[in-house]
């Protein structure tokens, strides 16, 4: 449904007025696709470009090069006005429901705003009905229309944010750390809800998160990102049970599972390099336990392991 082909997103920094500005490739050569009613989890450590990629897919950041193909149409380079109708189809849920809901708007205003823009033909009554329907879908009471965000808890606010995304009948929702700010018991509510809605509305998700337990739980496929590049992409079982890239292995070994408790775990040495000063060739070689000479001199090529499972590594485990 949505396909990314060699996508690059850059920021510029270094000079206030634009001279000598240094290009920082926040997202580099990213290619993968999300099929309809599929959840792709995007994992990686902070600063690796996960959110940048999400924003680029929403048209909130310009794409430097590459293609972003949504239902057959390349969205790279289209005008702002052409994005407008697409925003119905690609919606977003942000991390912090305390800052993503306008405190001065009522719940009705928040949820209905998108409908008023995208469906000007709807009458006031129709909109009210639609908002109520969405509130029921996200398990909130329909009498909260005139209340304000501060009256709700984090989990309830996140459900309001979901209702706001859902009311436009989107095909793809980008969930940028959508449950990270919530407590464990509330997290479970929101995740269960996202799973149910996916079935009911045939939704696809790009689920961006740093919490591996959550990504494992919710995703059909997982993309692992390191310093702006996808290092491995595959189904959940492939990534969690038979990871091929040393970073994927280390990343999943660093997550703490309730039922698999052991005290011995391989830890990666070193710090995460900065995106401004990425290492040469393979970006991971500075921390990689199996790095050899070639990793310092030559960029790894894409290695296809199975259908829908690929990695970028000179020595992938097969």
């Amino acid at each position, binding site marked *: 449904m949505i396909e990314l082909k060699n996508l690059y997103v850059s920021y510029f920094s270094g000079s206030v007025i634009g001279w000598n500005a240094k290009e920082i490739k926040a997202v580099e050569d990213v290619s993968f696709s999300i099929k309809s009613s599929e959840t792709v989890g995007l994992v990686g450590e902070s600063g690796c470009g996960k959110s940048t990629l999400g924003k680029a897919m929403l048209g909130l950041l310009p794409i430097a090069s590459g293609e972003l193909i949504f239902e057959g149409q390349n969205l790279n380079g289209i005008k702002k006005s052409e994005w407008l109708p697409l925003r119905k189809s690609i919606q977003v849920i942000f991390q912090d429901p305390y800052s993503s809901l306008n405190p001065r708007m009522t719940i009705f205003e928040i949820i209905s705003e998108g409908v008023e823009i995208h469906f000007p033909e709807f009458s006031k009554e129709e909109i009210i009905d639609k908002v109520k329907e969405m509130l029921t879908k996200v398990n909130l009471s329909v009498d909260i229309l005139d209340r304000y965000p501060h009256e709700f808890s984090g989990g309830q606010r996140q459900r309001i944010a979901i209702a706001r995304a859902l009311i436009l009948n989107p095909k793809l929702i980008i969930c940028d750390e959508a449950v990270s700010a919530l*407590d464990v018991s509330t997290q479970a509510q929101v*995740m269960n809800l996202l799973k149910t809605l996916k079935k009911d509305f045939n939704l696809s998700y790009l689920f961006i998160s740093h919490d591996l337990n959550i990504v494992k739980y919710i995703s059909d496929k997982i993309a692992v990102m390191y310093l702006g590049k996808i290092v491995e992409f595959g189904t959940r079982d492939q990534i969690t049970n038979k990871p091929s890239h040393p970073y994927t292995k280390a990343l999943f070994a660093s997550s703490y599972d*309730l039922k698999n408790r052991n005290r011995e775990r391989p830890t990666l040495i070193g710090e995460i390099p900065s995106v401004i000063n990425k290492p040469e060739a393979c970006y991971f070689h500075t921390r990689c336990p199996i790095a050899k000479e070639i990793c310092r001199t030559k960029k790894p090529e894409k290695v296809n392991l199975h259908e829908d499972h690929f990695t970028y590594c000179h020595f992938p485990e097969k």
Partner: protein
Amino acid sequence: MSKLSEDRKILLDVKDFSLDLVTENGSLPVIQDISFQIKEGEFLALVGESGCGKSVCSLALTKLLPSNLAKYKSGSILFQEEDIIKMDNMSIQKLRGNQISYVFQEPFSSLNPLKKIKDQIIEAFLVHGMGSKQEALDKAEYLLEKVGITDVKQRLNSYPNHMSGGMLQRISIAMALITDPILLIADEPTSAIDVTIQAQLIHLLMELKEQFSLSVLFISHDIALVSHMADRIAVMYAGEIVESGTIEEVIDSPKHPYTQALLNSYPSTDNLSQELEVIPGIVPSPIDYPIGCHFEQRCKYKMDICRLKKPNHIKLSESHSALCHLLEGKEK
């Protein structure tokens, strides 16, 4: 893992401790009758969701809360058999940052951005009069190497904004260790940090604990994380400790309905294809904690008595206890 010999001395003994916070809306009973012990060399994890009182508890242990806000209502906090609550400020100063050290969550805000690393690290050493400035610097160098910092000399002369979060947290740990503490209180020390770096820090913390024979009170919301390293665990809910015991007791056979629900709401390799358990409702606010059991409104096993009467701590084994009416009569 928790083969702690019985003859180990109890280092910290918190007994029936209650604390109110004074606010505009009156006194809030944020901590109610909590009891726990830390033996020498033991690693105790205090877990709970946000707002349950775990951080307030950690600060209250050395009276770090503003005295006009915190009202110590009852109970005792015995550290090496002396009651901290009864101590005057001077005596607590001698303990705090000396025998009891802290590592906080956010290294960017817990370190002073305007002071060089070396001046911050050695401060406690000098304040507690443990030696000369040169001795302090030597010790700082030694500790920074211990916590895995490279280019120590250069790092000592730099400022916090030159370093990453993981590195600053290593420095915070070194800073906490400079006075040779007996008890280290770590309040969510890895929550703001990436997973691969978190794994490094946890590994480091466990090594240091052995090497310096530290006792650790580790405060976290992440029950999966602490289940990998603690000897014992205490689960806090709405100002009370609802269950405590060894890792095996609490994680593998939880007895309190809240602990059970919390563990089932957590995604793990066991329940990937199942629906996660949802705890209905929200955590009550300290403004209106129920009279009876605090978990009663959200509990699926609630009975009439739960609303009316506070449950007792039921001792299920030497180390395991839970606060629930359901367990009445199952006492060991």
